[in-house]
């Protein structure tokens, strides 16, 4: 009975797999993956923030409860995640040797990988970005209270938020990104198998990044170009540096805000283009600020003090007023779109996994969000989940591990 069940599954695998493939036919415009599509793991900062420069097409945001029972187990967990980030991000050929920690040592044991990527695994620009939540530092189990970065709190609830408990919480987040959807799935499954018993999913959501239509910044699900203005790395608004008042182990890290925002796309599609443009502050077709012609043009708010060209409550004007005082509140945004099935009212459950990286959540993300409090667009969006995390510094040399500074 048992053996039959197993052989049946194996025998049926081929047919089932080919059925799946035809159901999710590869997009014609997908370029073949090159073995050179590798984002280096080592560095002062983690990948998945400014690296790779071109944001990957697919992502998974997976928040976990950490069930490690003591500091030693937590350290081993972080070491395991580091090994996984290295192997997954490096690409892996069928004939390549694996570290002994990856092998069960039992002949005939279930395969070490799920096979979803075939036997030769192209990295597809895979990056793993690890963030830790306040709850991990607060846990008496690990004794890390003194290491907690300043300003790492629970996610603030803003006036129009409709937070659903099942979409919040978690001690640790993994942002997994790659230029192929199957690689993101493969990576999460591989990591979870390797950390079974130590990590338990709290919530997870997958996202997709659109291609530029027709060029420039990709469009969000409201049809507008999004992420046009992002601070460059040398503007130094993202990474924690010395003298910031943060614990020294945190230098090279950054704060990550994840907000899962439902977008009422049916409602949005019933609004006239002029009103849409005024809510956003840009022309939908070109992405240019209202009154300008190119998406990269800078709006001239000084000569538009009454909002006759760009309304005073337009999203881009409130988010980034382009003044000396608000310049420091800019942040790196690296969000993904999501789709999640059907809402009770029959609408598509779809929206944005807003993700931002910054040195200071209160002075950047929260200050910006506070300015946006009553923007007209709030009627069309419903933030319902997410969290605040601290993205630990990068690993600078082989043998190091993510979060090593916590144990120094």
């Amino acid at each position, binding site marked *: 009975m*048992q053996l039959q069940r197993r052989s049946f599954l194996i025998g049926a695998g081929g047919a089932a797999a080919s059925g799946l493939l035809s159901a999710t036919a590869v997009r014609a415009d997908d370029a073949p993956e090159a073995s050179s599509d590798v984002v280096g793991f080592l560095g002062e900062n983690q990948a998945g923030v400014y690296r790779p420069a071109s944001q990957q097409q697919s992502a998974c945001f997976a928040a976990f409860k950490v069930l490690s029972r003591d500091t030693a187990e937590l350290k081993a967990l972080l070491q395991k995640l580091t090994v996984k980030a290295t192997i997954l991000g490096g690409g892996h050929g069928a004939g390549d040797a694996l570290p002994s920690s990856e092998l069960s040592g039992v002949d005939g044991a279930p395969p070490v990988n799920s096979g979803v990527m075939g036997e030769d695994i192209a990295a597809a620009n895979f990056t793993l970005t690890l963030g830790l939540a306040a709850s991990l530092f607060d846990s008496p189990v690990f004794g890390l209270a003194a290491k907690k970065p300043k300003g790492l709190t629970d996610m603030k609830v803003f006036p129009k938020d409709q937070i659903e408990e099942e979409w919040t919480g978690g001690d640790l987040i993994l942002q997994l990104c790659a230029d192929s959807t199957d690689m993101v799935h493969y990576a999460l499954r591989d990591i979870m198998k390797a950390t079974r*018993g130590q990590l338990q999913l709290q919530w997870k959501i997958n996202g997709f990044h659109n291609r530029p239509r027709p060029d420039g910044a990709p469009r969000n699900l409201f049809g507008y170009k999004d992420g046009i203005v992002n601070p460059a790395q040398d503007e130094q608004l993202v990474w924690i540096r010395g003298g910031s008042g943060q614990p020294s182990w945190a230098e090279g890290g950054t704060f990550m805000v994840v907000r899962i925002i439902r977008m009422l796309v049916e409602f949005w599609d019933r609004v006239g283009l002029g009103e849409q443009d005024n809510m956003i502050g840009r022309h939908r077709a070109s992405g240019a600020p209202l009154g300008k012609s190119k998406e990269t043009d800078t709006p001239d708010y000084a000569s538009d003090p009454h909002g006759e060209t760009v309304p005073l409550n337009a999203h881009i004007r409130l988010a980034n007023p382009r003044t000396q005082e608000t310049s420091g509140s800019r942040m790196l945004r690296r969000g993904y779109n999501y789709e999640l099935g059907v809402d009770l009212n029959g609408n598509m459950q779809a929206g944005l996994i807003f993700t931002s990286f910054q040195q200071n959540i209160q002075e950047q993300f929260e200050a910006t969000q506070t300015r946006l409090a009553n923007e007209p667009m709030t009627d069309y969006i419903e933030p319902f989940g997410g969290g605040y995390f601290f993205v630990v510094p990068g690993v600078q040399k082989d043998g190091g591990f993510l979060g090593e500074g916590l144990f120094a």
Partner: protein
Amino acid sequence: MTAPAVSPARPAQGAPTRPQPTQAGPPATMDDAVAAYHEYVAERLTELRQHVLALRANVGNGDVDSAMQAWLDAQQAWQSVGAAYGSFGDLGSAIAPGSRGLEDGAANPDFTGLRRIEYGLWHGQGAGELIPVIDKLLTDVDALEAKLPETAVAPSDMPLRLHEILEDTQRDHLSGRGDQGSGLALALARADVDATQEVLDMLRGLLDNLKSGFPARLDGELAALRAAIDATQKDGAWTDYAKVALAERQAVNAALGRALESLSLVPPLFSTD
């Protein structure tokens, strides 16, 4: 139809009474292990039959609370047999089939056995509907008991059983998909852990020869799972798994997942391929 007044949680059950060991140490050969398993199953079936007789009496008397308890005793006795994936063929399948694959699910007249009785008890059904189902169950238990001596358990089946009893726990009980109204998945999961421990004890010596220290590691992981399940009890009663606090569910799910990853190495360890 009015549902009976059901207390929100059923009384917790301890581990099933274990038979006295019939030999000093763990079985030394797979044939010995199979023989020990046969003996163990025969004893569990005797208990199952007693619980089903009590169930029949309680249903006949209209004593719903006692009937529910007797059902749980019977279902746990069946879980402790470790009958994963229909190991006793059609005879075993008749005792506790699920409602999958039946049109209209639990309402289908072809739905029988222990889970059908669970459905009835938790959906206000009485003696008129349930006594025939219970009598059929008794017939099936008798048939399995009678055939047991000649129902050979293949030696290769024992390692798979050690692994897959808890796969059933995850697939049927903790997923909520096997539930027919009782919300007692955790009580059944607890019996599954004990059944896994019993099979582990039977294979302990053989397994330790194949991978020294492995049975001890499994002992530790099963103990952690048992503790996580027990920690969900409130005032000694079981809670519907869907209503257990997330942090407690995460502890159970994590411990079960950890144990399953280890248990999946048992069949290949015993494989002679």
